[in-house]
């Protein structure tokens, strides 16, 4: 348990969290190692986990029959992957694939949801952190839609 807490102190998503909350969160986490090419989550499957990436890069992919797999975004050390565990029906919307060997902390979604429900202050803190992630991902998606480099002619 102490090991997970110590790792969370160093992770960008958790390092500003108050120690009492971090300790509660750590109780739902475990260390995982995902080999390059393996999936952390697969579209349509039950999502009861999220991952705090410590080492390595993960792609968020969408697979369409016509175009095949497409990488929409990549996340790296200091980022988190997966928020489908937060909302019903708790199923992954996209594939999350390790592009290289990944070390991460994997959290049990049901365990975390239970702790957030029992301690709303912690739940609010947790949701604010995820809201920040939602906002950053939404901004990124908007910039990608904008075709940021499309008008450069020089």
């Amino acid at each position, binding site marked *: 348990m102490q090991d997970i807490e110590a790792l969370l102190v160093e992770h960008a998503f958790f390092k500003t969290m108050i120690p009492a909350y971090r300790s509660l969160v750590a109780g739902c986490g475990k260390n995982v190692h995902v080999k390059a090419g393996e999936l952390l989550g697969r579209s349509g499957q039950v999502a009861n986990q999220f991952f705090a990436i410590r080492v390595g890069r993960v*792609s968020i992919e969408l697979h369409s029959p016509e175009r095949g797999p497409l990488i929409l*975004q*990549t996340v790296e050390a200091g980022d988190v992957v997966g928020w489908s565990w937060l909302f019903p029906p708790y199923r992954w919307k996209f594939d999350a*694939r390790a592009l290289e060997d990944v070390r991460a902390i994997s959290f049990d979604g049901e365990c975390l949801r239970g702790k957030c429900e029992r301690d709303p202050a912690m739940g609010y803190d947790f949701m604010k952190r995820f809201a920040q992630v939602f906002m*950053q991902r939404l901004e990124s998606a908007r910039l990608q839609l904008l075709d*940021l480099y499309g008008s450069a*002619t*020089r």
Partner: protein
Amino acid sequence: MVVPLDERIPEPMLPAAFRVRKNRRETPDTHTLELASIAEGVPAWRPGQFMMMYVFGAGEIPISISGDPAKRDCIVHTVRAVGPVSRAICDAKEGSSVGLRGPFGSVWPIERAEGRDVILVAGGIGLAPLRPVLHTVMANRDKYMRVSLLVGARTPDILLYRREMDRWRKRRVDVRLTVDAAAPGWQASVGPVTTLIPRIEFDPSSVVAFIVGPEIMMRVVSQVLAQRGVSYDRLFVSMERNMKCAVGFCGHCQLGPAFICKDGPVFSYPTLEAWLAIRNV
């Protein structure tokens, strides 16, 4: 930094004849041309400046210089084919002739970056006008602290200078690439170039950043750098407008009080910030 008048070329409206010594295809629509002088010699230039390139029977357009400032035997331009003139340039055969006027415009204040961390941010073909800065920094690598190059493009196949990037990395340049979308197999990042900024290390209190790309990209990159504590007066951008005369007579490239050809293309960000926020200017 605006180049003093006495350093400018004596006959700014008169194209000099150059021969296409090499034409290398960088991406499906982008070529790098090495141009050797036929008669007058290669003019002195500095990173950030541009030339007016004239193709007989097609027309004339402004093109940033993308070569190594230490090599004075040719002028190097990287050109993306987006219109009839740039298409004609990309199609130019080795041995054929083109006209060049210049160099024109202001230069990157590279000396301000000495002793500091340096960030170069390029979107799409915006890497071309930053390449001379990279050459300068690598030739004097010990004068600079951490150097980061962040490059964004739509897709992996249109990233420029891929073959040179290993050499840049060996000279302690932290090169990071990102694209808007990629197929599996792409090992670098996917996302807008702004997502690379939180991943690099620099001292916000002193870092100097040079940014080139479409105006919207330069604006959002500046905002993200400011969020990390970088003062706007250490951000420099290179502007692109419809330069025609290149000496501030015709007014085609005017943006607010500035002529991009004469006062730019390199500006400190605060000089232009207010004008970039005005729509339809």
